[in-house]
């Protein structure tokens, strides 16, 4: 199984560890983790190349997770790389902002369990543990799903 390069962005070292531990428990892929402490740090790490999936906190100093996601989506060919927001922000307005303005694919609220992580991200991996790419339809489908929740 080839390694999946995952960028874990959170100003809390404890939370970065929690995300990595949950992902390791899933055994859906063999991850190589790159860690960043804020959005600005994450942009620099992302630009070093090879990142296939990202787990991003919202509230961070210097650059928030939503601002970081917006920067990623502006980059050529980066419209479909999976961005999973992992955050304590849980109001519907925030979910809407992350998915629609930030361009995130998924939204996980803290604290989370490995099961919650699994049900949210397993669709982004194939049976060989590789990240599925080119998911524009999936992304739109997911956003429609969240929009329906927000309206109800």
């Amino acid at each position: 199984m080839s390694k999946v390069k995952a960028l874990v962005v959170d100003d809390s070292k404890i939370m970065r560890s929690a995300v990595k531990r949950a992902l390791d428990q899933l055994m859906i892929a063999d991850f190589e983790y790159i860690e960043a402490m804020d959005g600005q740090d994450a942009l620099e790490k992302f630009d070093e190349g090879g990142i296939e999936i990202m787990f991003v906190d919202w509230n961070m100093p210097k650059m928030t997770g939503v601002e970081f996601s917006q920067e990623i989506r502006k980059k050529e060919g980066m419209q479909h790389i999976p961005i999973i927001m992992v955050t304590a922000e849980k109001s519907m307005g925030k979910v809407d902002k992350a998915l629609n303005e930030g361009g995130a694919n998924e939204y996980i609220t803290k604290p989370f369990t490995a099961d919650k992580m699994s049900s949210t991200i397993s669709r982004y991996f194939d049976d060989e543990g590789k990240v599925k790419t080119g998911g524009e339809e999936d992304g739109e489908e997911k956003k429609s799903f969240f929009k329906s929740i927000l309206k109800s």
Partner: protein
Amino acid sequence: MMAMIAEKLNGAKSIPNEINDVVKQSVINTFESISGTAPDCIDMNGENEPLNGIIGNIAVFNTEHTLSLMLAIPKDTALNLSEIFIGMQIPFESDDMGDLVGEVSNILAGEVAANIEKIGFRGQSSLPTATRGSDLTLFMPNKPPTTKMKFSGPNGEFWLNMALSESK
């Protein structure tokens, strides 16, 4: 509703009961989601002893008002929380402990912000800070409206101090 709560907060001598109730429930929800068991809000019995532990500080604020939340956690409770949160006890004196309590405060503020919005206070969370020490006593300069609650759960006791002020 939005205008009503804003009016109540302007010049309030005490924190409105609606806000106290929402914050109390948010604390219960937060610790239940972390540990799997809901803590009980228990009688303070007038106690006001200094804390040997760690305080997580965070605010939920908008342009008009700031709700400061101070989560006071005794050392033993903090150690138990670390075991639940990351699967092992982390040293009380470590930076990781401050990180952990900051993150718990962050989760609490997210819950408070989501729930308080439902009664008309739309705000956002600040970044958390944590203060560790012994014989810690919380002072409230200018005597803002405050509420203090005590909780007890399987991981130990802890307190939530809340202060309301105008945003400046």
